[in-house]
């Protein structure tokens, strides 16, 4: 009797767990129909921590001063690099319940929504604010389709930066490498001293994908690099193969525990002097300064080898979805967002540089001043690892190929996977 009762209870419990488990995964795909606030301006982003959140609040302050009657609702969703926010956003857009305006990386990530017919063009807003020529042309290309502009860029991060521990380099009489030959020369010397030459944190694979895309940029040059994403240059190009060979060689110089580390942990290895170099976007600067390290004293930054003159752009932009209840309010917010006032309030706190070229350099630190100069003169290239260069689907396949390659180091397989994935590019 007791036994059969236990069996019965067990089976009910098991069934209940299975049912709730399945139900969760199914309903998650189709939820997102809660009504949006008509009178409030919902600002959707993944800026929830540290300088990012401070920057967003500073921006909202500027907006509130100019438009005191409009109530702003900060709808930030936590999660590194927007991993969770993007899923929430996709669900809301699918469900026909878009936020008033939302953060999205310029390029392919924004274009996914444009192609789906979910976004309003913003050309009128650009004209009204006299923004023509205020944003670099390469950048406007990333947010435009068929001559229509769909996003207002708010901040710019640079993706092709090699960070190094200045003390380690000085102690060993080394210069930061400008070419791959110099890089491997430096790396060999460091390895001989028992210092990890290059720190990578690829618990999330994009940490490695960024290294690869910077090698691609160096080997192909900015023009051919951009053509890779339009299909004009294919992945069986000899330069791509050479990039893979360099990448393979580089993997021989990285930390053993890379797959257990996030990007901050890899930066920490450099900060501690356990590793000498790290390839990461310039949000790493924010991490170093938060650890009380000083630019050009404790740590230094140079463009990744052979990519000087190119600027790998990771740009956050805001767009205006179709079907929002308060389009006028959204226009007002985007006006502040694109203005010099708004950008200079936001960017120094976040550690990025303004997309608007009229930004006041005196408000930025030494690193950012340099980056602002480069941004005006360098050729701008879209980052693959951050969704600007190619659609999400392709990016995921590249991440998959990179993850396998970092362990197996099989160049031919890697090129084959990339070529296969590139059929997903239109």
């Amino acid at each position, binding site marked *: 009797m*007791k036994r059969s009762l236990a069996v019965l209870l067990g089976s009910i419990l098991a069934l209940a767990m299975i049912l709730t488990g*399945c139900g969760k995964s199914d309903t998650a795909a189709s939820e997102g129909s809660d009504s949006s606030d008509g009178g409030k301006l919902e600002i959707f982003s993944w800026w929830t921590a540290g300088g990012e959140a401070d920057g967003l609040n500073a921006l909202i302050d500027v907006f509130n001063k100019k438009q005191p009657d409009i109530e702003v609702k900060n709808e930030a969703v936590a999660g590194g690099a927007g991993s969770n926010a993007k899923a929430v956003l996709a669900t809301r857009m699918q469900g026909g319940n878009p936020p008033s305006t939302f953060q999205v990386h310029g390029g392919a990530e924004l274009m996914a929504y444009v192609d789906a017919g979910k976004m309003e063009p913003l050309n009128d807003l650009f004209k009204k604010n006299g923004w023509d020529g205020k944003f670099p042309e390469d950048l406007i290309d990333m947010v435009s389709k068929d001559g229509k502009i769909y996003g207002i860029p708010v901040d710019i991060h640079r993706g092709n930066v090699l960070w190094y521990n200045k003390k380690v380099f000085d102690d060993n009489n080394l210069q930061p490498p400008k070419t791959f030959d110099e890089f491997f020369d430096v790396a060999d010397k460091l390895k001989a001293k028992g210092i990890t030459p290059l720190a990578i944190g690829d618990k999330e694979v994009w940490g490695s994908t960024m290294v690869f895309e910077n090698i691609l940029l160096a080997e192909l040059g900015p023009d051919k690099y951009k053509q890779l994403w339009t299909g004009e240059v294919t992945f069986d190009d000899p330069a791509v193969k050479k990039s893979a060979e360099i990448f393979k060689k580089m993997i021989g110089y990285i930390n053993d525990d*890379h797959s*257990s580390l996030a990007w901050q942990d890899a930066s920490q290895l450099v900060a501690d002097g356990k590793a000498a170099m790290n390839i990461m976007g310039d949000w790493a600067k924010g991490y170093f300064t938060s650890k009380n390290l000083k630019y050009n004293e404790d740590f230094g930054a140079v463009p990744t080898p052979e990519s000087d003159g190119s600027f790998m752009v990771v740009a956050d932009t805001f767009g205006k979805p179709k079907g929002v209840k308060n389009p006028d309010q959204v226009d007002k917010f985007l006006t502040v967002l694109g203005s010099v006032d708004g950008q200079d309030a936001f960017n120094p706190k976040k550690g990025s540089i303004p997309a608007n070229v009229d930004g006041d350099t005196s408000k930025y630190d030494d690193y950012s001043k340099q980056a602002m100069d480069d941004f005006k003169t360098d050729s701008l290239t879209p980052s693959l690892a951050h969704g600007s260069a190619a659609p999400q689907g392709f990016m*995921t396949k590249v991440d998959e190929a990179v993850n396998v390659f970092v362990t197996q180091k099989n160049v031919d397989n890697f090129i084959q996977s990339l070529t296969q994935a590139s059929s997903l590019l239109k």
Partner: protein
Amino acid sequence: MSDMVTQGRPRLSNQPAFKPRRRRRMNADRWIALGFILPSIILIAVFVYGFIGWTGYVSLSQWNSFLPDFSFAGFDNYAYIFKNFRFQADLRNTIFFTLFFIIAVVILGLVLAIFIDQKLKAESLFRNIFLFPMALSFVVTGVVWRWVLSPSTGVNLFLEHLGIHLKWYTSTAIFPHIHIGMIDFGIPAAVIPVVIAATWQQTGFSLAMFLAGLRGIPDELREAARMDGATELQIYWKVILPQLKPIMFSVIIIMAHISLKIFDLIYTMTGSGANYVTDMPGVNMFETTFKANYYAQGAAIAMIMLLLVAIFIVPYLIKSRKGDA
């Protein structure tokens, strides 16, 4: 008495015999009972089975971008994922993870339950200590064990003093390394730390189940065995264990469906791992669907996960139904 007979007679002659029986079934009580369970039946039909059906439908469609596209794709999505390196690795990992996890949880839970069943003084203290990890979510467990077993921190700082260097979940080693399909088949070393973390959390549950089972075995059985001259070991092996079979069956089923669908522990503790040595179908499903927007492929992975769980659950449900009857 005579009234009833006279009333019953014309009915019997005019109508089929089963009719009155059926009418008796649907009396007021039964209508009320049906009224009470109907809402939940409808809700479950729509929100569970309806959506399972919907997922199956999506998995056969071409909806592999942000824009829904329900044109029929046949089994293309299934063919794709089975040829995919990542999914093949998922199947390998999930097989070994489930196997080791169930073995560890059953054996540890049983041993601890027998230990606590020895009429200890501080029984409730031990019970609570062992049950406590169950109160945590897999997310917490994942973060804690990630740092405990990370090669540069935690337990490795002790081990390093002993001259032992373990790579734990960052290891990409696979034993015995047989090449099948696109992957190397074998036991991925990186799965073991995940098994440790999952076992740490779930052993309390199997302990509780086994303890309840042990308490349900009448002392007379043991005494009878002792009278017959059985040793303590023989009593456990020949008398107690067979009595615990149904409980063990339940533990295995419950653990199997937890491990086949595991997501949160992997996501927070190891991620997919280098070369996908710790990836599981659940993680793959989430990333394929919500990060890459391959909704149809994600749905196909979900359907395969459902099938895997069904392999364990359906025979169990059939068996327990028979047991009741």
